[in-house]
């Protein structure tokens, strides 16, 4: 009903290939985009700064990782280290007086170069071994950041971002930072939706499905695997820099630790491997559910529905969160994107029961 297919006639091939051939989808995107644009006008600072803003930046990071994990099929358990390289590069460049726009570019390039080194392991192994290799690299990057005061910022290991401006607009106000994050997330989403239609994207998918078979049909796995790591690390590095400048505004090593890498992987997987909407939903889930659960549980306790010890109270969100991840994987291994897709397909033919596409 809502997704009315009736009256949609594709008379030209490029119409049929449009990103959203169904008008309802298009409307939905427009509404969501308009809501996101207007967010600073109807959200309080609390929700804008602590929910919407980090959600957008983490979604961008998730999309960067999805490019690698979902599209190219290369597992990466050290992506937080890549983002850390971006964040630290941008902050050091900005402190040297280099304009923020160039610092962002530098962050991307530094992250891409070192991130491509991570990819070296991918040329040799895959699957679990790649997980372990990237994990080990995460530890190495962490160690270097922690043990080189010139990088981490001396005794307190905290580097504050210098005042910066993007295209002459100062990043001091929350709204500006929100819009910058929004622009970046939208840019990445559009990039990601279109990359699957390029030869590059198709080559990555071929490698994901079977790298030997891809080699047989003339796709050089060496080149494309490295390119996948390079591209994904580039956007990951820029996302890391934005995370530092727009959200944290001070970097410490703990912000990019091993558990953050795991969170990123969880965002990709819970959202649904390889889908754009999954990137946004997964990032939202992993980032916001623990926060919401914590507030919910203490709200329940405060209103007398939950009388347990404060220790158990603090751990309840952790338990529920773990159980939710397990539950999602067991009941819908394809993630939140698939759940969304099921709902969409249901309404596509509603009130009838079976769908074709």
């Amino acid at each position, binding site marked *: 009903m809502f997704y009315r297919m009736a009256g949609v006639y594709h008379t030209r091939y490029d119409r049929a290939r449009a990103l959203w051939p169904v008008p309802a989808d298009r409307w939905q995107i427009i509404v969501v985009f308009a809501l996101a644009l207007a967010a600073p006008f109807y959200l309080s600072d609390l929700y804008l700064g602590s929910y919407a803003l980090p959600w957008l930046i983490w979604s961008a990071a998730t999309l960067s990782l999805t490019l690698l994990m979902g599209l190219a099929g290369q597992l990466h358990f050290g992506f937080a280290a890549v983002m850390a390289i971006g964040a630290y590069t941008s902050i050091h460049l900005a402190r040297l007086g280099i304009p923020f726009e160039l610092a962002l570019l530098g962050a991307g390039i530094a992250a891409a170069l070192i991130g491509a080194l991570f990819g070296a392991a991918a040329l040799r192994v895959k699957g679990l071994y790649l997980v372990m290799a990237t994990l080990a690299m995460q530890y*190495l990057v962490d160690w270097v950041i922690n043990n080189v005061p010139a990088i981490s910022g001396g005794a307190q290991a905290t580097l504050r971002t210098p005042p910066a401006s993007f295209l002459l607009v100062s990043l001091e106000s929350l709204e500006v930072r929100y819009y910058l994050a929004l622009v970046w997330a939208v840019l990445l989403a559009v990039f990601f939706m279109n990359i699957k239609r390029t030869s590059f994207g198709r080559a990555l998918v071929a490698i994901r499905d079977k790298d030997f078979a891809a080699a047989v049909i003339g796709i050089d796995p060496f080149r494309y695997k490295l390119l996948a790591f390079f591209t994904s690390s580039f956007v990951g590095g820029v996302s890391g820099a934005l995370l530092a400048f727009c959200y944290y505004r001070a970097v410490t090593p703990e912000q990019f630790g091993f558990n953050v890498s795991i969170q990123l992987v969880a965002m990709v997987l819970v959202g649904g491997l390889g889908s754009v909407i999954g990137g946004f939903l997964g990032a939202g889930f992993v980032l916001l559910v623990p926060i919401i659960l914590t507030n919910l549980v203490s709200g329940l306790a405060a209103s007398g529905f939950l009388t347990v010890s404060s220790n158990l109270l603090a751990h309840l969100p952790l338990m529920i969160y*773990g159980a939710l991840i397990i539950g999602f994987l067991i009941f819908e*291994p394809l993630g939140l994107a698939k759940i969304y897709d099921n709902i969409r397909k249901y309404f596509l033919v509603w009130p009838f029961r079976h769908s074709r596409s």
Partner: protein
Amino acid sequence: MSYFVELVINGALTGLMYSLVAIGFVLIYKSAGVPNLAQGAVVMTAAYVVWLLASLGLPIIVAIVLGTVLMFGFGLLTERLLLRRMVGQPVIMIVMLTLGLEILLRGIGPGLLGAAPKSLDLGIGLGPVIIGDVFINRAYLVGGVVALALIGAALMFFQTRLGIKLRAVSDDHVSSWAVGISVERAVGISWGIAGISSVAAGVLWGSVQGVDWTLSTLLFPAVAVAILGGIDSIWGVLIGGLLVGILGSVIPGYLDAVVGGGTRDVVTSLIILLTIMIRPYGIFGREDIERI
């Protein structure tokens, strides 16, 4: 010289302590092909279970035996309720599931029993075993002996009728079904045995550092042990444990003073990386041959 010997011996014992954690990881990977990244949290759970039983007034030996039974059941249940539903899913989904399990366990243990570290006293004396100028850590000595015994038991177990079945299952699920081996049961049993080994690891590590959630961080060195030795090899756990322990003790022992920082994690990471780059299947592991 005695410094070097001491580093080697204590390193080797530490490595065997890591092997205790690694052995469960390897058993599950060998039989089911599941990389159980929750093994550290399972070790933590085992330590909590034994601590709980001991704090109910049971003698520590009884608590350990009872804990072993409970953890065997825990392993069986985990496999039956969670992992079996994931058969046929890509490895990354299974990895994520075990990570979810880790989060869940880390909530349940400290949440229900209290987050402050608990003490687990095994009655192992604190005084070192002194040979010349070499001090050997007594708790680690006990741990090393237990690890050796467990590895030996595992090796012998794989010669029994049930063990041969498990080996068949680890070779090929479909052919095992074809000759009438219950793959489900074999996989379940290997989870149970991994639960048992986690009691040994949890109790020994718990007695050294106290029982709290940090026990679950033992996963990382254990994975290094498993990767180096070969992720599906019991011998590999032994040799990998000794190598990771000795390298992780000797190299920092000389390098830390020069670098001015704890380099052990770097050594462990480099061991993983180099192994994967040079010989991904480890020292004793079986090389996978991939067909198109």
